[in-house]
Structure formats: C-alpha cells, structure tokens
C-alpha cells in the first residue's frame, strides 16, 4: 500500500467524504482522491458519487461576514438619537442602497420608526434597543462553516437561509458531486488487522539497503497494471534500420559492399556501361548536371578503350554503336543517376577479386517532381557477381535467392527485359506472401563491351538491381515513398522497428 492509502484507510472508519478525510489526514484532496482510487481498485472500499445541494456564501455574504451586516451598523449609528433620514448615509458609512435595505428590514422587525417632523427622521423603538445588544439570527447564520449541505440545516437555519437568499448575493445553492467512500468487508477486516507504516517497505532506498531495515517487513505491492507515462528513447531511423538489415543480409550471402562518388562523370555513370552518348537517357532532363566544376580527370587509357568500343567495338567482338565518341562529353560531371556506376568502377578497380560478389546501396538522383512515388534522391541497391564459367542459369538461381531472402517469395517469374549494359537481360517478379506479384528488380549478364575495356578481358559478370524500397514500405506499412525520409518526429519515435 502507498503511504497515502495507509493514511486514508484508518480515516474511513469515521469519515466518508472527501473533504472530511482530507481534513482528518492532512492530505490534499487530490492525494486523497488518488488513494481512494487505489483502495477502490483493491476492492477495499466502494466509491460512490452523488450530487448534493450545498448552501454557500456568495460575494456579499462573505463581505458582510467580515464587515458586519448593514442593519447592525444602522442600529449602532442610531443609538438613542433620532437622525434625519438624509444624514444617515454619512452617519452609518453605508451607501444609499444599503441604508434603504436596512431601513426596510428594521421597520419590518419593528425596530425603528419614521418620525414626520420638518423632515423625515429615524428613531429606534424599544425592540430596536433590545436588538442592539443581541446577535441577529442572520449574523449567527453567516458564521456557520460553509459549504453546508442544504439538508443538514436546522428548521430555523433554513428559514434564515430563505430570507438571505432574497438579498443580493448573500447566499446561493451549489450542486456538487461529492465522493463517498464506504469500506467493504475486506476493507473493514484489513482495518481491524491494522495498517501500520513501520511494517511496510515503500521505495527501496540506499538507506534501507545500508541499514537492512527492510528485513522482516512487507514490501508494498504495486498496481502493476496502472498506466505509466510514455518515454522516447533513442533509436535508428526506420528506413535506415531496414537498409542495415539489407546490408547485413548481403554480407551474410558473401557479398562485399562497394561505393562511389555522388558527383560522377558521364564516363562512369553511362559511357563505361556502353550507353551510347546519343541514348535518350543522356538527354539533359534525365540527369542533374552540375555548375562547377564542369569536368573531372579520368584515366585516359581507359577512356580510349571505351571510345573505341563505342565507335567500332574495339577488341570486344562487337560492331560498336558506329558513331564518333565525344571525349569532352565523357568528362562532364553530373549527380550519379544509377548505382551501376559503382559496379563499373569496381570492374576497373585493383581491389576487384575474381571470383567475387559485390553489392552497393547508393544514393542516386534523377530529375523528377517529388510526389508519392518519386523522391528528390533515392537509394539503389545493386551489384555484381564475377566468376569464370557463370551462366544466365546461375543468374536465375541468384534472383530466386534474392526473392526468397528479401521478399519471402517462393515463386518468381523471370521475363525478358532491356538494359543497354546487359545481354541477356531480365526482369524479376516475385510473389510476395502478402503483396502478391511485385516487380523486384532487373538483371542480366554485363555485355563484353562493358567488361572487356574495364577489366582487360571477358569474364562473366552477373549484374542485378533490386527494388528494396517497395519491401521497406510494405514492412513499415507506408504508402507514400516520401515517408521513408519523413521529418515527422512522432512517426520517427513511434514507427515499429523492422
């Protein structure tokens, strides 16, 4: 039991009402209320609440309680003298209205009479003189301990109350709901048993532990079901946390993470991927070009090999695109539009291991209007597997693995597709257990025109890209892609951890 409860319970033996209990225990009414609520939860008491009519002092009632009633001051001002009516406000210190009211009242009680001389004069009667030395009924009433339940007033008091109600802002009736607490049988027996503070351990304090005072005592039981206030701890951003899982998954599957710069050249972003310079994806509206710097340095030997491949196929066994490759243009700088740029860099890197598996989760940029399905910048998840002897049938297996691991899909469809840098190319559809058929990604075998200039030889490279954002949105239960980057702190705090 809480200390409040322990103080309130004994008081209930003699009192039932909030105000009384508060007075008896010295606790604030809110504290008593909490204790009563807890006791009721434990079925030690029954709480009832009923409306009651209460007599209370109004504004003037309270005022005259302090200053004295106007009729008392009227009586005292007169004394044995008779005074002209016009002089009364000055002599009594009352205003005109108060004088009139007092005069009326005292006349009705036959305590004063009006004398008609040259002017009107007022004089006490014998009854008036008697009243001068006696407490008026009204005065006695005002001194009662308000608020008082109407029903608890005596007959005489009720009469006075009715009289006072006629006067301006003296008394009024308030309807209040009062809580009543009645002990249950269980409560009574507990009270008989005795509730003693010294036998109960409340908070476990260092002092109690040091002194061992807890020994032989009872630990107060807590109401473990009662609501506690929310707290917000630190946590990962929900979408980032999902991407952490994706990264972990790839590493578990034997993939190594690769990366690349946000500001890319035409060369790595497109030319090295055998996308001809006149390809429609190269038009200005499909990539963000930057103002400064305009160009970047490149390995010119590599550029020459790519140029030859575009123009005539070089030593790749291809006819090439048959156009004149623009060297200036390949040095231009833009914001990376596809993660495949990182795969191209990996193929040309000294770090590349054959056999090897690589993945990247990279921020990419395309000029789109931001809406429910487009972001200003977005993540692409893609990668490569490089090894002698790999075939399109290995790619099929890999795509099935991805569908199972990332979308929980047992069924997949692999259909023909077109990417400028892969041949054969495929699109992966996976049957998600809840979403049904979803387009999960694109894949293919890198063209020799991509691999040979970068690597110096032709080794099979399986390349793929996965649309993991759709899975993230499903898992986080969101429909609008913009929410992946939500700035709503409440969402960030409340989003479930997936």
């Amino acid at each position: 039991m809480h200390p409040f409860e322990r103080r309130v319970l004994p008081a209930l033996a003699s009192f039932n009402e909030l105000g009384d209990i508060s007075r008896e225990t010295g606790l604030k009414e809110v504290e008593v209320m909490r204790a009563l609520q807890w006791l009721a939860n434990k079925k030690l008491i029954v709480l009832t609440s009923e409306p009651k009519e209460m007599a209370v002092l109004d504004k003037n009632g309270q005022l005259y309680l302090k200053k004295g009633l106007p009729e008392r001051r009227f009586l005292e001002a007169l004394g044995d003298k008779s005074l002209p009516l016009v002089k009364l406000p000055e002599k009594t210190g009352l205003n005109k209205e108060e004088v009139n009211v007092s005069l009326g009242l005292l006349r009705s009680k036959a305590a004063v009479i009006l004398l008609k001389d040259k002017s009107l004069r007022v004089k006490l009667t014998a009854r008036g003189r008697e009243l001068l030395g006696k407490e008026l009924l009204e005065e006695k009433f005002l001194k009662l301990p308000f608020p008082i339940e109407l029903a608890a007033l005596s007959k005489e008091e009720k009469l006075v109350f009715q009289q006072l109600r006629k006067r301006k802002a003296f008394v009024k009736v308030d309807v209040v709901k009062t809580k009543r607490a009645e002990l249950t049988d269980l409560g009574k027996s507990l009270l008989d048993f005795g509730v003693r503070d010294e036998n109960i351990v409340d908070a476990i304090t260092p002092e109690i532990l040091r002194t061992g005072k807890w020994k032989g005592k009872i630990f107060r039981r807590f109401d473990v079901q009662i609501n506690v206030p929310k707290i917000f701890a630190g946590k990962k951003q929900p979408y980032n946390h999902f991407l952490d899982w994706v990264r972990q998954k790839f590493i578990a599957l034997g993939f190594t993470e690769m990366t690349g710069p946000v500001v890319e050249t035409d060369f790595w972003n497109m030319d090295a991927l055998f996308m001809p310079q006149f390809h429609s994806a190269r038009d200005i509206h499909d990539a963000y070009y930057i103002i400064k710097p305009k160009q970047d340095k490149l390995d010119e030997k590599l550029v020459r090999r790519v140029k030859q491949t575009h123009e005539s196929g070089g030593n790749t066994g291809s006819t090439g695109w048959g156009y004149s490759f623009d060297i200036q243009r390949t040095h231009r700088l833009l914001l990376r539009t596809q993660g495949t740029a990182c795969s191209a860099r990996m193929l040309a890197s000294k770090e590349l291991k054959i056999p090897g598996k690589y993945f990247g989760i990279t921020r990419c940029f395309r000029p789109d209007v931001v809406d429910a399905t487009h972001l200003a910048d977005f993540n692409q998840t893609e990668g490569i597997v490089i090894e002698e002897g790999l075939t399109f049938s290995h790619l099929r297996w890999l795509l099935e693995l991805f569908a199972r691991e990332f979308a929980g899909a047992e069924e997949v469809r692999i259909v023909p597709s077109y990417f400028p840098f892969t041949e054969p190319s495929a699109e992966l559809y996976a049957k998600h257990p809840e979403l049904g058929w979803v387009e999960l990604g694109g894949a293919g075998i890198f063209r020799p025109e991509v691999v040979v200039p970068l690597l110096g030889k032709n080794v099979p490279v399986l390349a793929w890209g996965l649309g993991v954002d759709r899975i993230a949105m499903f898992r986080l239960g969101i429909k609008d892609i913009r929410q992946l980057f939500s700035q709503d702190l409440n969402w960030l705090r409340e989003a479930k951890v997936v």
Partner: protein
Amino acid sequence: MPTISFTPADLYHLIGQRLTEAKLKFLVESVKGELESVLSREITVKLNDTNLPYLWSVEGLARAFRGLLGKKKGIPKVKYVRTKDKVIVDRKLAKIRPYIACFVAKGKKIDDYLLKQIIQLQEKLAENFGRKREKISIGVYPFRKISFPIYYKACKPTSVRFVPLDFQNPLSLKEILAQHPKGKEYGHIISGFKDYPVLMDAKKEVLSLAPVINSSTTGKLEIGDSEIFFDATGTDYDSVQLVANIFAYALADRGFKIYSLVVDYRGKKVQTPSFETRAVKVPFDEIEHMLGIKLSEAKIKLLLGKAGFDYSKKKVVIPSYRQDIMHPVDIVEEIAIAYGYDKLPSIPLETYTVGNTFPIQRFLDNARDLMVGLGYQEALTPLLSNKILLYDKLGVNDFGTIEIKNFMSANYSCVRTWIIPLLIEILSKNKHYDFPQRIFEAGLVTRRTNELVQDEYHLAAASSHATANFTEVRQAVEFLLRMLGLRYEVEEFELGCFVPGRAAEIRIKKQPVAFLGEIHPEVLRGFGLTMPVVAFEINLSALFLQV
C-alpha cells in the same frame, strides 16, 4: 519509351489467329514490352527496348509474334520492284542533313485506322528513335501528286515559298520556322545553317521542309489514297536506311507492293529500301557458355527461326529492319527468349566468397549506435537541399557547394555540405511534440574546393529542451570521441550559427574534425523555434583517418 495502340482485331488478323490475354501478355513480355491495357477495341503496349524500333508498330509486333508462335518462322519475303526512278541529293546537304531514303508503296486503300497506324509509327520513329527529329525525320505523301525525279536540295531560307500543312498561304522557309507551330518546335535543328533541306519534285513543287513540315499541296496523305511516297532524312546513314526498311516491311505486311528508288548522291547511288540482310556466325560456344544448357544445331536453327532470323550454313541471317545485333551475345539472348526464360534451369552459385562492408561503414554504424545510446533519435534527410537553408538561415558562409544546373525545384538545387541545418529544420516542424527532442543523422555531404569534389561522411546532432546548453553538447561529443578511442583538443571557435563564446572546435593532431555549440537565438527565431537548441557536427571521414 514508346507506347503504341491498335485494335485486337487488327493484331489477330495480322498474326492469323486469336490470342488469350495470358498468351498476349507472354508474347509482349517476350519482346520486352509491357501490356498497359487490353480493352475490347484497343490494346496498348509499352516497348522498353529502345534498340528495336521495328516493334513500334502493330505490323512489327505481329511479325515477331508470328515467329514466336511458330506460325511463320524466319525473315518474311517482301514483294518489291526495283525501279530506276531517282531521288537526287544536293552535295551542299553533306554538312546539314546528308542522308535520305525513299520508296513508293502501292496497292491498298488507306482507311481512317490505317492512316492512324501509319502516323503512329512515323511519330514514334521520329520522336524516340530519331531523337525528336534531330537524327531522323519521316514524311509520307500521296504519290499521285508527285513526279520523278525528286530533288533533295539545300535552299536559301528566303528563296523558296510553299503552303505548309494547316496553313492557307505560302510562306518562305524562314517564315515557316518563325510562324508555324512545327517550325517553332523543330526549326532549331536547321536554323543554324545557311541553307535548309527541302524536298521537291520534277515540277519544282515543294514536298516538304525537312525535318519540319510537309507541303499542304503535295504532302497530305488522305483517306482513300492507295499510293504512298515515303521519305526519311537524317544525320546518320544507317539509321535512315533502317527506318526506311522498317516502314517498307510494315506496309508490305499490310499487302502493299514496294517500289524501291535510286538515291543519287552525285557519285554514289544507293537503292532504297535496301532490304539487305547480313549474316554472322552462330555463336554455338557462347550459347552454351552463357545459358548453361546444351542445344543441338537443329534446335538452334528452330529457335533462330522463331526469333525471326534465317539460318544458313552455320550463320544467322539478320533482317534489314534490325540493327540491334552488335555482338554474338545479342544472338544468345534471342535464343534464350525463343527457348523461354522460364524453361532455363536454376544453377546454384557454389564458390565461397567472404562478405564484408567497406571499413568506414562500420565506423559510421558504431557512431550511430553510440548516438542511440545517448538517447538521440536518428533522422534521414535527402542529400539534395538549397543554399537558403544551408547558409542564409544559419548565418554561415558557403562551404563550397555543388550546385545543379538544371534543377527541377529550388528546394532541391544543390548537394548538402553539412547536416545541422537539416536537423534544425526538422525541429522547426515538430514544435508540438514532447521535449526533450534529441535527433541526429549520419550520412554523406559533398564539398568542393576549387576543382576538387569530395564526399565526406558527417555525423550531426541537435538537442532541444528548456535547459539545453553547451555542457550537454560537449559531453556528448566527448563521449563519442572517447568511445572511438581518440585523443583531441578543444579550441575556441566562431561560426555564425552559434552564440559567440559558446562554440568550440575539436581538433585531432591540429586537424579540425568537429564543431559544437549553442545555436544563436537569432537563428532559432528564423526557424520559429522558442526552445533552446545545441548542436554538433563531426566529420567522420576525417576522424576515420585518425583511428
């Protein structure tokens, strides 16, 4: 990527059989397309292979489907007549728009639907494959109004006048570029030259101003016509030939008879359309090595036929309407598709490889974990931002920003160079939620020093509540640095966004790696914030070099 529409009846008529929707979907996927919609009177298909423009017509699609269904394998035979009628090319066009291919098609009455199909193919080829007419443009004319020889000439902009389509009065070439809607749209392609490319016939009647507009007298194909004159002009010889072949095949599939013409380049004569096939060796080895299956020669021959190729003496014969076969791997894909991707086996990867992330990613993740331990909520914002937010609102000078030339929205017109402003912006949008609010983000920023562009990983955090102060933020930074095992010095620091005297810089071996402080009330006012904010930003890339 082009989208085309046609009636189901027309498609089934051209194929020679009806199709279920499932079968239709499968066939469309086999040619790398998407079935956008199937209505009773209209089918809409999106074609994703920008390198196979012959498929951008119902005739081309039907031809591919006939092969895949096994109804008509190999390259279809075209009925055509080689004529000696001439199209004479002006040498002066060599630097302007040098190439042209023409033919005449006769023998079918053009109705409303067929006219729409012809115009659809013309538009898709010129807009998508022809890169908005720059590389290729196409004209179709009623042949009855034209007489040979035809001249493809370079003309002075003011020397020739004709009535363009949809206009009433004759205009000079220059006036057409200035006044006609098509002139305004496509005029830029030729306006830089002294002469413009004009097609006219033996009677000096103008057919068209390439690549802009046809003449309203000789250049308007109408319902009821049954003889078509076709021209394609452009800057790339092969593409011009390809487009003429594609168009000729489409009309031949409809039952037109094709009359090829002689294009006379004054020294070199070319018969167009060429209908020329080319042959390459069947890549038997690559087929096996790339697909992981063994196929007999007979099977390969069958599959090539289904894919629309002829087979002759271990060679693949490629039709004139295809230019996409650049490498043996392209043949391999054709075989794989004709075989059926769904029938290919699934062969597991068996070589063991060790997975790993790049070193700084783990460092970044450690820092994120520590921030979470400090009770900070992680946030994620776009890398694209704007200079008003990054600098003006913070009272800070440009750190060296990568700005976008062709941005779509001013809000996203540059790459972020630091993260604190984005965190303060988040706080400004969440004033009604419980405090304390502690948020952080770890991610990329990009900065430019002269010609050098560098990506850096930064970690920034902001804490906002009634008693947020310098001590709190310095405690957080020092906790991070200690846990990452770093020795550092704390120096006085000035930056516009911080209260003077309440900001510090962290240095490791004299190198600045982080700054922190109390955000200036003036900055908070700018964001409408009425709760104190303290913040720090650490250059994790610089830290990583010190670990």
